[in-house]
């Protein structure tokens, strides 16, 4: 039937009946289309809804951030400050949830009862002060930074007036191992107030990197060994303080930085005593004979002398203006350049400095930046005194007097001199981008100076033979000086470089006001000897030797740098 009708529609002739039938058919088709469209629309609407819900589920499951109100939850669950770790990933500091306990005086029902409860359960609290604060009627803190057990004890009082304020406390896992002005401290509002915590405050609070810890160059294990040994030395020599610095001579990474005395950085204390000042970065000293190495390096670099050049007729003393410059010990009158350093001759250094001249010395000091504040990732750095080039300045500077600098800078220049002449910027943070190196001296001069520094330790006449630890090829220079501005304070320093055949580390040891320990018996090349004297920084040398003996194997194992060359040579 349908086929016939279609035939009729398509016919060429036109009749009214045909028109009616066509119209009917069109209406039918239109109705059918409308119905279909509605069904489609319905399907489309529901499909859209289903799609929206599906998208929502997918979005919720894929979204890494929890969608509950982060601002409310953040103080409770999310860390607001990045971790700080050492070079091996050992945790140094991390935020933890803690509370402050406060009192709302208006909510106290029975003041007398409240105070009795506090006195009974917390006898350490000063009740009179609390009473006054309650009387004032203002909200106040009863105790800040309480732990969970204390919180429970306060909770157990059952007082509505006691409120707990959540906050994040910074914990330092190693207590007093790292100084307050190196790693630093954080206040109750999560702001860094000293050290790395202050310098990198913004980066440490950056939410983008909150799960990535800030990696330092410090090594916890080495720091501990050095700290322990230095503490023991302070007791042995009745010193008032001490400092130590271990630096990688090739890249300036600070592996250890110790300044004693120190305190537990988990406790917030107001420190006014100067003895807690960081002696390595902030302490400014006349480092004495340490500077003779610079004088020798400069003389060699300018081809004025060679290490074996003999300086003849060195006088016992020199007079410069009203000052008398002499040596602590009597040396032979003819000394080679290297012997001047080995025997630590002041007069010999002055003669060499005169050959070098004031301009070259000035240029050297300018290049080393020794008389300017050190550039380090902390704000607690010292400001060396301005140097005035008046009469006799060149002479005194040549053996390290009349010039001040921080031990950190002195050690970094030793690093530069021993690593082939490349100036390095000491740093506490890993992965820095400061590779624009300048050269202080040539590689040839560096090798020569390293050999002389080795002789200072290995030679019988050397001032540092107590640090001659088997297998480590230790080289270095001692220094004894008075503290700048306080002639009563004496500083004994030893800066060592090891192994001198391929320098890798520079270790600085400093003791403040060490005394002679007559009972001390030390082992010198297999012979037990009583403590001899208290000059030329020998006690710092003794400490350095003990430290190198302890940290040497760790550095060797960790860095694959040392070989059993000593053993091989011994049996060859």
């Amino acid at each position, binding site marked *: 039937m349908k086929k016939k009708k279609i035939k009729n529609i398509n016919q060429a002739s036109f009749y009214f009946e045909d028109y009616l039938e066509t119209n009917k058919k069109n209406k039918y088709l239109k109705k059918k289309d409308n*119905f279909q469209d509605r069904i489609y629309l*319905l*399907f489309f609407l529901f499909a859209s809804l289903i799609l929206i819900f599906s998208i929502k589920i997918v979005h*919720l499951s894929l979204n890494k951030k929890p969608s509950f109100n982060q601002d409310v939850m953040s103080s409770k669950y999310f860390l607001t400050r990045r971790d700080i770790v050492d070079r091996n990933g*050992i945790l140094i500091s*991390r935020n933890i949830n803690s509370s402050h306990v406060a009192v709302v005086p208006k909510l106290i029902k029975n003041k007398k009862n409240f105070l009795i409860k506090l006195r009974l359960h917390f006898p350490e609290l000063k009740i009179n002060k609390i009473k006054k604060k309650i009387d004032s009627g203002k909200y106040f803190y009863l105790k800040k930074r309480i732990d969970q057990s204390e919180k429970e004890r306060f909770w157990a009082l059952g007082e509505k007036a006691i409120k707990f304020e959540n906050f994040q406390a910074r914990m330092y896992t190693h207590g007093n191992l790292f100084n307050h002005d190196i790693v630093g401290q954080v206040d109750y509002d999560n702001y860094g107030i000293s050290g790395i915590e202050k310098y990198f405050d913004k980066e440490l609070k950056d939410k983008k990197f909150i799960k990535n810890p800030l990696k330092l160059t410090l090594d*916890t294990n080495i720091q*501990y060994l050095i700290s322990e040994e230095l503490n023991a030395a302070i007791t042995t020599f009745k010193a008032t303080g001490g400092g130590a610095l271990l630096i990688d001579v090739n890249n300036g990474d600070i592996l250890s930085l110790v300044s004693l005395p120190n305190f537990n950085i988990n406790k917030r204390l107001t420190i006014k005593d100067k003895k807690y000042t960081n002696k390595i970065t902030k302490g400014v000293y006349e480092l004495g004979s340490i500077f003779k190495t610079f004088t020798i390096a400069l003389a060699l670099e300018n081809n004025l002398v060679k290490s074996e050049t003999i300086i003849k007729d060195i006088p016992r003393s020199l007079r410069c203006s009203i000052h008398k410059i002499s040596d602590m010990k009597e040396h032979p009158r003819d000394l080679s350049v290297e012997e001047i350093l080995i025997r630590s001759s002041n007069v010999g250094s002055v003669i060499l400095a005169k050959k070098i001249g004031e301009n070259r010395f000035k240029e050297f000091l300018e290049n080393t930046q020794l008389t300017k504040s050190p550039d380090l990732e902390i704000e607690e750095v010292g400001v060396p005194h301005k140097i005035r080039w008046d009469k006799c300045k060149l002479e005194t500077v040549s053996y390290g007097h009349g010039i001040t600098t921080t031990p950190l800078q002195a050690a970094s220049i030793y690093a530069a001199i021993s690593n082939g002449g490349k100036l390095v910027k000491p740093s506490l943070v890993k992965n820095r981008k400061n590779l624009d190196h300048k050269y202080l001296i040539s590689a040839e001069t560096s090798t020569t100076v390293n050999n002389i520094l080795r002789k200072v330790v290995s030679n019988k006449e050397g001032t540092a033979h107590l640090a001659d630890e088997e297998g480590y090829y230790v080289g270095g220079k001692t220094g004894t000086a008075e503290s700048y501005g306080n002639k009563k304070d004496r500083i004994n320093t030893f800066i060592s470089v090891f192994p001198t055949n391929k320098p890798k580390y520079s270790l600085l040891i400093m003791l403040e006001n060490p005394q002679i320990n007559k009972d001390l018996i030390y082992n010198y090349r297999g012979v037990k000897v009583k403590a001899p004297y208290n000059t030329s920084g020998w006690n710092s040398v003794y400490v350095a030797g003990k430290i190198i003996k302890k940290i040497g194997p760790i550095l060797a194992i960790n860095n694959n740098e040392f070989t059993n060359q000593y053993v091989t040579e011994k049996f060859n």
Partner: protein
Amino acid sequence: MFKSKIIISTTIFLILLITTSIIKNKTRIIEKNIFSLNKKIVLKEKDINESQLDFYFVASPSEIEKKIKILGQNSYSPIKNSKIFLKLSNFKNFYKKISAIDTQDEKKKN
């Protein structure tokens, strides 16, 4: 004809409505689960953080040394540099040399 269309469209509408409400309900349940799981994850992370903190404190060199002292064991002593062998071949060569020296000594004695 008209009735059948209404019935069909109402049925489809009802089916879709029920399906949508079921899906909506399921979504809500899943959403709740995701919330609670996220919360659990965060709490677990917090626990891990605190446990790590405890671990690093307990495993710090000073704490380990204290424990050694309590246990009455000998204090740490550094290994001699000459005893450090970074390669097995170094170790073998070293002992070969020692045994060679020993045999030479014995021969001399005999």
